[in-house]
């Protein structure tokens, strides 16, 4: 019964989204306030309906109702509660429903909180958002209905793919989706502005908080996915340039560019045409990602669906939205007036440089991801494009960008002085050189690139701090005044510095973990020792153990440094009984920011086992840096909320800007 209600709610939502697609748009174009007024309440109603539908599916999972095909295929009564819930989106149908849920959630946010946005822009934006919503609900109803029943209900379900039974994967998709789909609202804003022919600095101010919000979640989601792959897949790698990873990385790169160009548009009324194009591109890349991941074009853990009908359906949606918006852009963009002029050496110039490199990097990732597919379709030739391609293209594009990062915020708007900016950065440069020399002293000339990489990372980190310090003039006004000024700085300045600092932290982690990693692969018998990076590991033997829905063979290892025991590590090989599927569970010991990583291979008859041990110096900085970036984004949103009242409940506005910091 509940399941049927969920299905029904989704059908209702479809009907409502069709109404929402048309009436507010007509109202916005004709300046008819009655028609426009329906948009906000309908956007909330849409959210409620889709949320009900999602809740119904969740209820079916919680009660292990195996008469629902989707539940039967992806759940099991013996599964822990959390994985019953995450199982809802651990499959094709459910994940598309989550996609739509987030789509309407963002619509409802704009409908509910976007009271400072002009009525016509808000109505048109919500209408465009509903076009996307209607398309995707139709996709669910027509090809991927999660509410289908089986005539004779089986007694037990098939269980969720064991590698998806992990806390990281329970949160990774929702985070990623909020980011991915969050860019839809930026897209809707852009299309609405093009239709209404109204695009000015104020538009950028309304759009930027939404872009930031999506970006924050996407950053966190990608980091989470990367950490999951790192510890769950048992290969110790944290980024594989897998097409599915790239699918989420491309919107991130474009979204990062968008964030920066929107600043120029907001502050200086320049780069309008480009910013709108980026807004369209960013969401188009999200759609492309959805297509790649959901259509079965790529075979990977994410490709649940291999039904060609679905692939074609998404492809049609993709062409409609991307083609339609670009056509609209080609038609309307020439009418936009260009705003403020600026010299090449200026804050704007730096931000343009940022955009150039980020978009070039996006193109590189795009080519690397799609070229094999295109080649396969055209010539039938099978190739793979892996890490070497991306290291050679993406890497060189990032280096100049990273070198330039600290310059941006210290340059003045309109016309900057590179010499003055450099003088402010002397200290940062000095520290970076010291870090470089220190690494060289520590590791020698073995790997020349690594000390340079460390220097670059430190340069970005210290550069970010210099920006805050110069704004405060800490060394000129003294500590107590300086501290007061520090508190008075706007959140967006803090946000920039924190996020840039995070970039440096991530780069540092990447450089040290890849250049100075130590790895040993060997076969160990009980009692054997292996030494690695100052740690001594003893293999004590393998003991079987039983979990809630799996059996496992646990390897027992003792870690010593200088003879004293520091840790017992227990990597294991699991067999999930429902699917008879084995997985590898790595054991990880974190010491400061570095990690000792241990995973088991095949066991031998004599009790010996294949072992892979890594020492990864500062590896956790990769993800910590991402979290710092996301935090910087949040700080920046908090500031915007106070200054322009973007997404906030009007009644609960904080009176003084200091209170939030």
């Amino acid at each position, binding site marked *: 019964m509940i399941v049927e209600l969920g299905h029904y709610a989704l059908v209702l939502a479809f009907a409502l989204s069709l109404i929402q697609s048309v009436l507010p748009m007509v109202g916005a174009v004709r300046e008819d306030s009655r028609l426009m007024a329906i948009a906000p309440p309908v956007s909330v109603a849409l959210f409620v309906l889709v949320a009900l539908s999602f809740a119904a599916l969740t209820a079916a999972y919680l009660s292990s109702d195996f008469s629902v095909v989707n539940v039967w295929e992806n759940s099991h009564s013996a599964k822990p509660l959390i994985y019953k819930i995450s199982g809802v989106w651990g499959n094709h149908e459910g994940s598309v429903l989550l996609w739509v849920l987030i789509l309407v959630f963002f619509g409802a946010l704009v409908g509910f909180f976007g009271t400072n946005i002009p009525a016509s822009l808000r109505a048109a934006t919500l209408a465009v958002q509903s076009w996307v919503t209607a398309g995707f609900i139709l996709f669910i109803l027509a090809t991927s209905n999660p509410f289908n029943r089986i005539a004779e209900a089986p007694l037990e379900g098939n269980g969720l793919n064991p590698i998806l039974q992990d806390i990281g994967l329970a949160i990774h998709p929702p985070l990623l989706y909020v980011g991915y789909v969050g860019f839809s609202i930026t897209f809707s804003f852009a299309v609405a502005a093009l239709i209404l022919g109204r695009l000015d600095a104020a538009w950028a101010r309304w759009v930027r908080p939404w872009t930031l919000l999506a970006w924050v979640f996407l950053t966190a989601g990608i980091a989470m996915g990367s950490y999951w792959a790192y510890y769950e897949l048992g290969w110790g790698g944290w980024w594989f340039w897998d097409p599915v990873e790239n699918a989420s990385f491309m919107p991130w790169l474009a979204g990062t560019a968008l964030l920066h160009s929107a600043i120029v548009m907001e502050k200086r009324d320049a780069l309008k045409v480009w910013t709108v194009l980026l807004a369209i591109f960013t969401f188009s890349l999200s759609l492309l990602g959805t297509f790649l991941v959901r259509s079965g074009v790529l075979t990977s853990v994410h490709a649940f669906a291999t039904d060609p009908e679905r692939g074609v359906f998404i492809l049609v949606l993709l062409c409609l939205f991307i083609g339609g918006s670009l056509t609209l852009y080609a038609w309307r963009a020439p009418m936009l007036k260009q705003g403020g002029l600026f010299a090449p050496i200026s804050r704007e110039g730096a931000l*343009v440089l940022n955009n150039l490199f980020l978009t*070039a990097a996006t193109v*590189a990732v795009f080519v690397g991801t799609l070229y094999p597919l295109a080649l396969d379709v055209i010539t039938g030739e099978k190739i*793979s494009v892996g890490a070497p391609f991306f290291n*050679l293209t993406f890497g*060189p594009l990032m280096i100049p960008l990273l070198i330039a990062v600290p310059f941006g915020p210290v340059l003045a708007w309109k016309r900057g002085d590179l010499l003055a900016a450099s003088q402010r950065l002397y200290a940062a440069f000095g520290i970076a050189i010291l870090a470089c020399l220190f690494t060289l002293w520590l590791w020698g000339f073995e790997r020349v690139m690594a000390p340079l990489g460390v220097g670059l990372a430190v340069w970005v980190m210290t550069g970010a701090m210099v920006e805050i310090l110069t704004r405060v003039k800490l060394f000129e006004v003294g500590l107590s005044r300086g501290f007061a000024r520090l508190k008075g700085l706007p959140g967006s300045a803090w946000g920039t510095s924190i996020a840039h600092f995070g970039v440096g932290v991530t780069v540092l982690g990447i450089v040290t973990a890849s250049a100075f990693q130590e790895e040993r*692969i060997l076969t160990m018998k009980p009692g054997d020792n292996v030494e690695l990076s100052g740690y001594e590991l003893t293999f004590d033997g393998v003991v079987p153990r039983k979990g809630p829905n799996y059996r496992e063979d646990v390897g027992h290892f003792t870690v010593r440094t200088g003879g004293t025991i520091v840790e017992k590590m227990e990597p294991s090989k699991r067999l999930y009984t429902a699917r008879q599927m084995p997985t*590898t569970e790595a054991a990880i010991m974190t010491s400061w920011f570095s990690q000792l990583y241990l995973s088991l291979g095949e066991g031998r008859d004599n009790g010996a086992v294949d072992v892979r041990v890594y020492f990864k110096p500062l590896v956790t900085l990769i993800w910590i840096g991402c979290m710092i970036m996301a935090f910087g984004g949040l700080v920046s949103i908090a500031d915007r909320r106070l200054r322009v009242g973007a997404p906030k409940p009007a009644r609960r506005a904080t009176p003084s800007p200091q209170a939030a910091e």
Partner: protein
Amino acid sequence: MIGIAGAVLAVAVGLILFALNDQIVFFQSPTDIAEKAIPPGQRIRLGGLVEEGTVVRSDDANVSFKVTDTVNSVSVTYKGILPDLFREGQGVVTEGVIDARGVFVADNVLAKHDENYVPKEVAEALKQQGVWQGE
């Protein structure tokens, strides 16, 4: 400004073209390897089925096995931990180079994420040999 933009784009395009020429890896089946003369040292991806009864494990996590498309087969050596779903008779994709003796030295054996999943290239290669069992 436009000059800089042009320069960045030119460099990006140059990098991409260079990398596409140099860094891509072709997929080959054991029959491809038997028929074409693939120079030793060139990186390729080799895919097929793990031939029954050929997996031999030795010390220091070394393992050797044969990859077959039922017509031809190629000997493969690998040092490292095999993916969880590596099985005799199952599909596999390995990446590496052919050495002077004609043995394929893999540095990467691709994991499968799911027991139902056969790498698409392998499925197609097997279909070409007419031994594909699936749908």
